[in-house]
């Protein structure tokens, strides 16, 4: 056994008397101490699924009810769908919000395969925003690009410009 057992004096061999090289042998008395043990109570542990078992503990409370334990922890129940951390987003509003305002880690959420057709329409309606990196890299060039686009547009579509102005 690897654990160190507390050697009890009455079982210890006497090396001290052998080691001491004196003219006469000395053997002092060893006090046999009574082992001290903390007081323990029997406690009933009730797990979150209702199963229970008894154990000995220093805690004086007779019944311990746990809310989070092995029965409802996802690490121990990897196949349980109930415990999976899935957001309830049936209408797709949270996802739409993320698509519009999501930045960084939030923008990279993978598009789920099981999408409704309505969701897809919504996705197409909302313009895909530039990611954060694009904003940084294209900071200086952007006004020029817009200018170029507006100059090309001016010749072709005047009515659109008028309509815009009217809206404003």
């Amino acid at each position, binding site marked *: 056994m690897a654990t160190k057992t507390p050697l009890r004096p009455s079982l210890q061999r006497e090396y001290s008397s052998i080691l001491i090289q004196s003219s006469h042998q000395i053997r002092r008395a060893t006090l046999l101490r009574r082992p001290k043990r903390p007081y323990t109570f029997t406690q009933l542990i009730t797990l979150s699924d209702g199963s229970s078992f008894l154990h*000995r503990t*220093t805690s004086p409370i007779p019944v311990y009810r746990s809310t989070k334990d092995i029965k409802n922890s996802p690490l*121990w129940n990897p196949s349980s769908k109930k415990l999976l951390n899935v957001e309830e987003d049936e209408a797709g509003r949270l996802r739409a919000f993320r698509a519009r305002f999501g930045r960084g880690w939030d923008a990279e959420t993978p598009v789920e395969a099981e999408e409704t057709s309505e969701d897809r329409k919504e996705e197409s309606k909302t313009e895909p925003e530039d990611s954060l990196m694009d904003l940084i890299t294209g900071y200086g060039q952007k006004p020029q690009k817009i200018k170029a686009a507006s100059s090309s547009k001016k010749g072709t579509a005047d009515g659109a410009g008028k309509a815009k102005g009217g809206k404003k």
Partner: protein
Amino acid sequence: MVLYELRTGAPAILRRDAQALFQSTRTCCRRYASSTATEELEQTSSFSTPDPSEDIIKNYDPIARSRKRSVQLPPSRYQFRPPKYYRGPLHPHQPPHPSDPSSREFIPGPFTLPRLEQTYESTIAPDLMTLTYTHFPPGYRAPEKSERLRTWRGDSPYFKNRPLRGPRGGDALRLLRKPITFRNIPRITGVTIHSMVKEAKEDSAYLHVAGMVMQAISNVKVKTHVAKSSVAQWGLREGKYISATAHLKQEDAFHFLSKCVDVVLPRIKDWKGLKGSTGDSSGNLNFGLTPEAVALFPEIEINYDMYPPKMIPGCNIIIHTTARTDRDARLLIRAIGFPFYGKLVD
């Protein structure tokens, strides 16, 4: 004896001078304990003594005598009291063995049959034996292994009678893994909870609190340890009390492990499990708990106010098993309910 001495001494007296004569007379005066003892010996045997007389037998009534007593005898007259001190193997009054209930060092128990132990006996042990079984068809011969400690081979005459060479690649002689049968299924032999409290070198209160916490979660008395050597970088001085250890065995160990698995570990935030590379390559696994995790134990939680919150220690927990390799130990620990993460190293 005396006569014999005289008889042998007589010619010497004749031959030697006065000094020799004086010496022989002195030997004559010497007292022999055995010769006097033979005179004192009784001729009659105790076996031939007659039975007690009739009236003694008639008057012998211990029940009436005890009834007649107004005050009870002190308990020391009824029960055996073992000696308080052990005075060495040659002392006539020896203390009883610690396994004797009358011994001062007797530790009673076990008081319960832990749930984990029952599970081990009924489920885990047979499973482990099945999992570690390797089938050898009849007539199979194991390939010859190279010798564990190598002999010195060569022409040098100095190789003769040399002690064997150590293993390749290091000094450590690894444990031999024997095929697992019903006799040597890996089992848990104990748990060691250890905590080195850095702050204890300035303020011993930290170590006291650590001891209290560890005793509360483990059900056993803790042992404190002093620093063996000074380390200037850590500000550690030799002889200072800095760490505490609790050694749990059988019942306590099982209760502690099941408590950990069922209640404590699932509540730790973002706990991934035991590291896959843990182990001392001879079947003892180790993991650590942060102070926040230690505070989640039901015993600490129930009166959390008792402990100064900044003094609750983190601790290392070593699980001792009889497995010869980490692989087997991991199989056992995993069956008990400890998850592992990362690359598994054997």
